[in-house]
Structure formats: C-alpha cells, structure tokens
C-alpha cells in the first residue's frame, strides 16, 4: 500500500515533509527513555488491563509526597512498557499515627494499601506478623532491584530485619540524616566574626569545611553567641517533643557519638548498656542546650523547628535533611548554609559523628493479589531507574543509590545534598524490633520527664527506661535476661 501525503499538504515540498517527519521521530525518540522502546514487554500478564493501586504515606513529608507526585510518570511508563493502565490513590497519616493506620489495616489481612511507606524502625513490627513481602527471592529474580547503595547503612536501616541478617523487607524510598541549618547571613554580618573571636578566642566557622571540623563544645559557643532574645532570635533549635521519636533521635545521636549505645541487638540486653554514666552525661549536655533556644523549645518537633527557623527566630536548627525545602523558604533563599551537625571529641582528639538515621522504606503488602503484587514490583523497578532517581533528587527527595549520589553535580542539586551525602555513612538506626513502639513510648516518656524537669536525675531516667525496655524485650522473648532486682517498683 502506498502512503500518500494528505491533500492539504499537497503544496508542501516532499523533501521538506520527509525531513520534518524524520526530525520529529528523532525528537520523540530522544525525549522518551530509550529502554521503553528497546525493552517493551510484549507478554506482560497485565497487558490491556486497568489496575488501581493505593499507596499509604506520611502526611506533610515532602519525600513521601514526591513518591506520590511522581506516580503519574509511572502510569505513562507502565502503559508504554507493559501495556496496562494504572492509576493511584493515596492515603496518609502523620508520623505518630501512620504505623497505627498501617497495622490496623494489615492486621485484618487487608490489601487496602498495596504499597506502604513505612518508617525504618517498623520493619520488625511489620515483618514478624508476615504483613509485608520478604524480598530476598524477588531481588534474586530481579537483579535490577539488587542496587548498590551509597553506604551500607542504607541496607541495614531500610531493608534488613532482623538486624545483622541477610533478610530484606524494604526498598529505600528516601534516605535522611540530621543536618545543621545555619543562618549564613547572620554569620557573615559585619563585625560578628571579630566579636566572636574577641569573646571566645577562636575563629568563627563560616564555611562547610569549617563546620565539618566543629565540635559540640565550639558549636555551643556559636549558639550562645547568637542567642539574642532582644533581637528576636536564639542560637539553636532542637527537638524535645514527646511526640513519636522526636526527642530520641537527636538525644541518641549525642549518646552514640560519645561512645554510648542503647542495646545489644544480638542478645536484646538493655540494662548495663543504656543506663551508663556516659549516656547520662549526654542527657545533661542535651538538656543544657535548651538555654540557647527560643522559649517553648521543650515542645519542639519537626514542624515547630521548621516554623521557628523559617520565621527567623533561630540562628541554627538541627533538622532532618528531608524537610530542607520547607526550611529554606523563598525568603530564606541564599541566607542558609546546610552543614554537618557538630562532631564529638574522642579520647584521641578526633571528632566522631554517629547520628540517628531518618528516612523510610517502601514495603509491599503481603495480602496483595497477583495483579497488584506485580504492579507493585513494576513500580519498584521504575522507581530505581536512574532517570527516576535523578528526577526524585531534582525535586528535593533524597535518593540512596550510589549511582545517583555519585553523579556529577549531585551535590549542587539541593542545598543540603552535600551534607546529606556526608552524614549518610555517619548515621545508623536504632531498634528494628517488633516491640519498637512500646519501647519508644517508655523512652520518650522518660527522656521528656528529664528534659522538662519532672525528674532531675538523668541516671534515674535511664535506669527507668532500661528496666522497662528490658522487661518488654524479656517478655517478648527477644532478651534472655529478665530485668534485675533493682527494677522492682521503679518509677519516674
């Protein structure tokens, strides 16, 4: 059959028409990812079908929202590559309620949410009752999902349960670390550096490299120097809220960076590990920072720190890198430097940073039917395509794969990426135990009791937490030793 140009193009030169068509085809080919055409799966079991997927994520959390915002791109990709139509619905809940929402649904063996953005510490609680899909076999059959991560902690925190095993249950959705957001405009204001040097006999840190060498003692001087209530701002903003794990994450970072720990994951032992003099000192140190913070800092969680920093009421803020976009508002553009949080001096004079990791994995609902399980798998394969991860990074998410984080120019994509990359290998998670939330509740209660002055002895707060957590872990069979006799009748 001969194809003729339409009559209304009769006046167009044949060569011009052919050249134009070829150019359009070439442009289309370049514009769309090449593998879509080269790897189209003709025999996909869902080809021609329409699937509706549901994702459960974290409310008000940008990286979680990005996973949702980018899903229409997956729909296009799935149509082109696999030949099926997919649409997404979304549900969310704040950090404190998300596990509850997921668990109550999964406990009824519901496939209400096909893909869930879980917090890293929940892996044990979701995997133990077999609510989420074990991924070892899936990864073995789909090598493109066996990704090289930027640091081993990515696999440990977002994929592995129990700790130290090769069992994988999660795919990293976003990585996250604690970062220090600094008001560079205040740092660079005329006369400040000289005044700082005159007062503390040290140079004021000004660059990213200066902050890399900054110890907690020197940071405290900086916080004190910039505490100016008369001018409406204070030197620091840190988390002390009782909600979820808000006080625990920075406080455990203080403990771990000074050689402390919270438990032994192999034996489940807490007593003797958490309730140490070193950890008690870390608690005193963390509480002492309150005097450089705005009134009400004792209630600060993630959102409150965003508010005080964005409104110019804090010179520096300890915050998750994931909320960098919210911290650096249009009014703050160019005024903020994102640097590593301070290091802690070791006996040999070196600085150590062992901070708590943030971030969340994707987990797949074990009660999905075959079709939804297949789409969830296709979604994961799409999620880890280099171009998807790069797009995620450009929009402000925090990818974890080595290829994206090592790509040229990655550090400059977002103001916090250099720090995020630096902190990722210097961060670690705490328990992945199924009793996570019960242990956390006790810990939050005691830590805030000390921080707010309900009790005045940090050693007592730690002893209380250690006793209660030891009891919880012994009761669940994780710990071999029951709480010691000193725990009888212990209370805050």
């Amino acid at each position, binding site marked *: 059959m001969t194809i003729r140009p339409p009559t209304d193009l009769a006046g167009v030169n044949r060569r011009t028409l052919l050249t134009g068509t070829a150019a359009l085809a070439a442009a289309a080919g370049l514009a769309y990812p090449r593998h879509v055409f080269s790897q189209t799966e003709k025999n996909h079991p869902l080809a021609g079908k329409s699937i509706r997927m549901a994702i459960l994520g974290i409310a008000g959390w940008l990286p979680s929202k990005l996973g949702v915002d980018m899903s229409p791109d997956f729909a296009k990709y799935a149509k082109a590559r696999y030949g099926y139509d997919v649409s997404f619905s979304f549900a969310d809940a704040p950090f404190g309620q998300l596990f509850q929402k997921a*668990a109550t649904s999964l*406990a009824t063996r519901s496939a209400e949410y096909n893909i869930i953005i879980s917090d890293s510490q929940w892996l044990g609680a979701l995997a133990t009752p077999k609510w989420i899909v074990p991924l070892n076999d899936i990864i073995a059959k789909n090598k493109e999902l066996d990704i090289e991560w930027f640091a081993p902690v990515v696999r440990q925190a977002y994929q592995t349960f129990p700790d130290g095993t090769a069992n994988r249950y999660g795919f990293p959705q976003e990585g996250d670390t604690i970062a220090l957001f600094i008001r560079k405009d205040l740092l660079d204001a005329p006369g400040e550096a000289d005044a700082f040097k005159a007062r503390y006999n040290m140079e004021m840190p000004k660059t990213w490299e200066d902050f890399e060498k900054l110890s907690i003692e020197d940071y405290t001087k900086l916080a004190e120097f910039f505490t100016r209530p008369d001018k409406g701002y204070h030197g620091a903003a840190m988390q002390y809220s*009782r909600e979820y794990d808000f006080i625990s994450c920075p406080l455990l970072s203080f403990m771990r960076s000074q050689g402390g720990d919270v438990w032994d994951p192999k034996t489940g032992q807490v007593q003797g590990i958490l309730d140490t003099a070193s950890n008690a000192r870390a608690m005193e140190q963390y509480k002492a920072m309150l005097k450089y913070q705005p*009134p009400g800092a004792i209630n600060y969680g993630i959102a409150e720190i965003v*508010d005080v920093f964005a409104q110019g009421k804090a010179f520096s803020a300890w915050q998750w890198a994931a909320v960098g976009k919210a911290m650096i508002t249009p009014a703050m553009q160019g005024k903020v430097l994102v640097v590593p949080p301070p290091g802690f001096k070791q006996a040999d004079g070196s600085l150590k940073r062992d901070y708590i990791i943030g971030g969340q994995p994707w987990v797949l609902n074990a009660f999905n039917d075959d079709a939804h399980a297949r789409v969830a798998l296709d979604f994961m394969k799409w999620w880890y395509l280099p171009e998807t991860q790069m797009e995620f990074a450009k929009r402000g998410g925090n990818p974890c794969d080595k290829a994206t984080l090592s790509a040229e120019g990655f550090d400059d994509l977002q103001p916090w990426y250099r720090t995020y990359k630096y902190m990722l290998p210097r961060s670690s998670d705490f328990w992945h135990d*199924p009793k996570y939330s*019960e242990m956390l*509740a006790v810990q939050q209660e005691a830590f805030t009791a000390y921080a*707010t002055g309900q009790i005045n002895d940090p050693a007592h707060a730690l002893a209380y937490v250690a006793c209660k957590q030891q009891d919880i872990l012994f009761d669940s069979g994780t710990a071999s030793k029951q709480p010691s006799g000193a725990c009888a009748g212990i*209370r805050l």
Partner: protein
Amino acid sequence: MLPGLLLIPVLAFFIVWNTIPTLWLLGLSFYRFSLTSGRAPIYAGLLNFQNILNDSGVWLDLSRTLLFVVSGVGIQTVLGVALGLLFWNSGRLPGRRVALTLLFAPMVLTPVASGTFWRLIYDPTFGVLNAMLRGVGLSGANFLGDSSTAFAAVLVVDVWMWTPFMVLMTMAALASVPKAELEAAEIDQLSWMQRMRLVLLHHGKYILMLGILLRTIDSFKTMDLIYNMTFGGPGTTTQLVAITLYRRAFEAFNMGWSSALAVILLLISIAFTATFIFVLHWRDKADA
C-alpha cells in the same frame, strides 16, 4: 408480637456493636497477645490484671485522672451554676441568644480541634496568650512545656470546653422549678439563700447531679483533648489513664494488657453508672 419484632433491629445493633466486642475484650484480657508479635494469643489467666495492679505507673495515671476529674468537674459545676443563675429569667436581656450561642460553642467543638488551637494559643513563641502577657509587661510562660504548669493548663481547656454543659444542666434544673413555688417564696419574702436552698436546689438537685455524674464519666475518659495538646507530657505530667490505654493498645499493640486495663476502666465506669442509676431511683422514690 409486633412490638417484639420492632425491638430486633436495635437489639441486633446492640449485640453486634456492644455485647460481642465487650465479651471479646473480656476474653482477650486473659491472654498475652501482641498484634505485632506474629504469635497466637497465649492464655495467661489473671497475669495481665496482676501486672497492671503491680504497675506503679498505672496507679500514678489513675491518681492523676482522679485529680483531673475532681478538680475539673468541681470547677465546671461552680462556674456552670453561677453562669446558669446569671442567665436565668434573662429572657428580655438584649443579646441573650448570641451570648448563649457563644457560651455553648466550646462544647460542640471536637476535642481534637479544641486541643489544636489551644496548643497554638499557649505556644510560647507564636501564641496569642504569651503575646498578650508580654503586651502588658509580664514575662511569657511555657504553659504546656513546663511540668509545673502543664496540668493546670490542660485543666483550664477542659473547664473552658465543658462549663457550658453545666450551664445547660443548671438552666434545665432551674426551668424545672414550679412557678407557683417561686411566687410563694416571693410572697413569704424568703432571702436569696433560702430561696436557693429550699426552692431552687430542692427541685433542681437531681438534674444537677445528673449533669455532674455525666461529666464525671466523660471526664474520666478524657484522651483526645490532652493527647493533642501535650501527648501526655511533659514527662508524664498530663498522662491520664485513657492516654496510657490508647498508647498501649494502638501504638504498642499490646492487646492483652490493654484489654485488661480497659476491663478495669470499664468496671470503674460501671460504678459511676450504678451511682447514676441509684440517683435516678432516689429521685423516683422521693417524688413518690
């Protein structure tokens, strides 16, 4: 036959949504069962009850709850009666309807919403209360973050929210007083105190007692209002027993332990309800 049949829907509803879950709860309270353990429930007899009764934290939560109930309901009753008397016979007062509507507004708001905006009002950095205090030259306070003020701060919100209910009950009580007796008191030139004691309180006391009992039962269950303001903190300063129950049941998913605590709280609530029914019977007997 027909009246019996008409009862079936409501009975079915009651059995499905009330009786079966309560029996289930009672059964679960004798088991060790965590939703996230991946293990089947293990029969433990009275172990959960024993653990709760030996838990000093639970006793502290209960004592805090008792203090919250007694002080909250007490203040609400005094204020409610005072305001109710103020509005009594105020039919011709200009703006009465608007004033009453505004007065009752807190009661119809959801506790979660009330908790959220009171948290913002109390906020030491952005809150309007501290701004006002600073405006008159006083130093601000961290009402919800300071363990010496947090309990009082949440109590104030509970009083703000539920005093209107006691106003409503007082107005209902006053409306129940026969007009003839009021006129007789007027003719006999009884003093204000005598009129209060011999006429108003005599007729209105049952309705007032009902109000107090309903508020006591409701106050005992307070959870959402406080959880939204302080999460039970700072430390455990505002942790009422209902918050502990919520935490253990729906954050920690320790279903056996929390079922046992729920059974204990249910028994306490039944005690309140029994008192309430006793008061009603008392009224019936007195009226007879």
